[in-house]
């Protein structure tokens, strides 16, 4: 039974639950069994709480028995990235700084999932504080790519992508600051969607770079991504940057837009560098597929593409240095036992020296530098101005096309350790995903093929608040291919 269950989609499982052909408790038991079966190989979870998950599933069954189901997510296990607050559960951000932290409240997206009956399942590994592209920066463990255990799953939502790919959760939540949902989704062969900035509340997401961060779904198919995005979207007064826009019914919109002849843009700067790499083949084939549907394919230009990584690493590290100032060793974090008591700030400095890992130190110090007196205008203000130019590039492109098609990542998943010693080359692996965060537009990664047995993702970038269009475009491809039914052998 469990073999059949663990790769079923949320919509299929939802139907089985609704018809009472399956109980939420049995589904949760199967999910736990699958998690344990492959976790030694995959290593997606920082922790999980079986008793709590089974109690949530039991409550879901009781609701359904009483005729009061909360809807399509009721009883569906959803894995949670370990930087989202779930009341009473650990929230480590894969950092020693928060190793013992237990969240005293729910993030808004978690509150929403609870109110819709989803079973919150486990704490998924990430690069410490979501800073990284391989999940190797976790203070606790290395997560493996389920398709090739010698490779990284991508990052920073590597645990979320690997767990979804390995059938350890029906779907998962991640967060995306520069590609942290889309890049691991592409490396693990799952669907990942970064919503428009402001679509989903950031309340209860441990802040990395507040003007770039968004929470979003990682799932094994496009409809499930729509379902999970639906569940977490909406304005929230506790996040003043969340937008007061209505949330469309994504599944209905997908149905209505079926067969629409989209105008799709290929940013020439993205293809110039990547044209002849093996990982490009599936992407080019996907583009041909859209052409064969009658979509118009147009070359467009995003002239400031080459400046995106530099802009991003100034803005993201500046915001991080400010956001991470709260981890001070005083109120709720790790505190150093030995420090220089004569120096009133040494308790902070030593607690942070012990609590933060190497990449976090690197970014906090870089962020501090670009904000420091005498450098602010040259780096931070300059980067914010270039951000405007990058945003305008997209605005101009979207005057001509409905959405853009690009590779999600320059290469498939790389080997563990390969880029660990060279931060800049790791940063450059985010080259295709970063601009969407700077421009605040939605982006998604869709499995479109393989290169050397490793999954390759097609990235679709859309207009602000047009996630429905991204989902529709992705769904056309998914319906004509069987990638969603291909799984790693574990």
């Amino acid at each position, binding site marked *: 039974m469990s073999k059949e269950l663990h790769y079923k989609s949320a919509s299929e499982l939802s139907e089985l639950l609704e018809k009472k052909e399956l109980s939420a408790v049995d589904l949760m038991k199967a999910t736990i069994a699958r998690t344990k079966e492959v976790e030694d190989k995959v290593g997606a979870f920082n922790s999980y709480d079986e008793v709590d998950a089974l109690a949530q599933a039991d409550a879901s069954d009781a609701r359904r028995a009483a005729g009061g189901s909360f809807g399509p997510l009721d009883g569906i296990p959803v894995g949670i990235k370990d930087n989202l607050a779930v009341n009473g559960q650990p929230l480590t951000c894969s950092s020693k700084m928060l190793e*013992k932290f237990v969240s*005293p*409240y729910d993030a808004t997206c978690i509150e929403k999932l609870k109110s819709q009956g989803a079973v919150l399942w486990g704490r998924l590994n990430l690069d410490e504080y979501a800073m990284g592209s391989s999940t190797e920066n976790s203070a606790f463990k290395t997560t493996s790519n389920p398709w090739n255990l010698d490779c990284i799953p991508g990052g920073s939502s590597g645990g979320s992508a690997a767990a979804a790919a390995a059938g350890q959760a029906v779907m998962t939540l991640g967060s995306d600051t520069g590609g942290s949902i889309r890049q691991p989704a592409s490396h693990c062969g799952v669907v990942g969607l970064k919503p*428009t*900035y402001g679509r989903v509340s950031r309340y209860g997401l441990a802040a990395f770079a507040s*003007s770039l961060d968004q929470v979003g779904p990682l799932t094994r198919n496009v409809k499930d991504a729509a379902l999970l995005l639906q569940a977490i979207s909406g304005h929230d007064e506790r996040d*003043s940057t969340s*937008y*007061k826009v209505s949330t469309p019914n994504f599944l209905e919109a997908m149905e209505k837009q079926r067969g629409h002849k989209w105008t799709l843009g290929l940013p020439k700067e993205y293809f110039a560098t990547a044209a002849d790499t093996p990982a490009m083949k599936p992407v080019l084939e996907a583009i041909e597929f859209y052409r064969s549907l009658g979509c118009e394919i147009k070359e467009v230009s995003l002239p*400031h593409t*080459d*400046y995106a990584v*530099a*802009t991003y*690493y*100034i803005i993201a590290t500046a915001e991080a*240095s400010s956001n991470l*100032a709260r981890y*001070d*060793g*005083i*109120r709720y*974090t790790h*505190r150093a036992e030995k*420090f220089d*008591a004569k120096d*009133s*700030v*040494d*308790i*902070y*400095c*030593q607690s*942070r*020296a012990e609590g933060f890992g190497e990449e976090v*130190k*690197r970014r*906090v*110090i*870089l962020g*501090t*530098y670009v904000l*420091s007196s005498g450098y602010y205008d040259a780096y931070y*203000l*300059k*980067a*914010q*101005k*270039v*951000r*405007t*130019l990058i*945003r305008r590039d997209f605005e101009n492109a979207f005057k001509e096309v409905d959405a853009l098609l690009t590779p999600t990542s320059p290469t498939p998943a790389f080997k563990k350790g390969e880029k660990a010693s060279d*931060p*800049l080359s790791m940063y450059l692996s985010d080259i295709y995903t970063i601009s969407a965060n*700077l*421009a*605040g*537009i939605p982006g998604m990664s869709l499995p479109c093929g393989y290169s050397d047995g490793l999954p390759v993702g097609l990235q679709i970038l859309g207009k*602000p608040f047009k996630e429905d269009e991204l989902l529709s475009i992705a769904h056309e491809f998914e319906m004509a291919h069987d990638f969603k039914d291909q799984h790693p052998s574990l």
Partner: protein
Amino acid sequence: MTEEKHIDIDYTAKLARINLTDAEKEKLSEQLDSIIGYVEKLEELDTEGVEPTAHPHPVYNVWQEDEVKGELSTEEALKNAPAQRDNMIVVPKVVD
């Protein structure tokens, strides 16, 4: 990047409130120097008269009533404190 180092690592680490070992200082200052060298390519662009973007879809004048909602109890708020006594966080003495 062969010229003088961009970053005064001692000063910046102190501002960031992070103690670094000598080995960390050496490694970080080299890596940060190459990253800073890379990000300086932004100087190539003319941004005269360009408005800076702080947020991609700015929202202005977000007001709400100043009222207490969803507060934590003292016990809950202190649950994660590294040291506590009598409903307060214990910190080392900083003044004599």
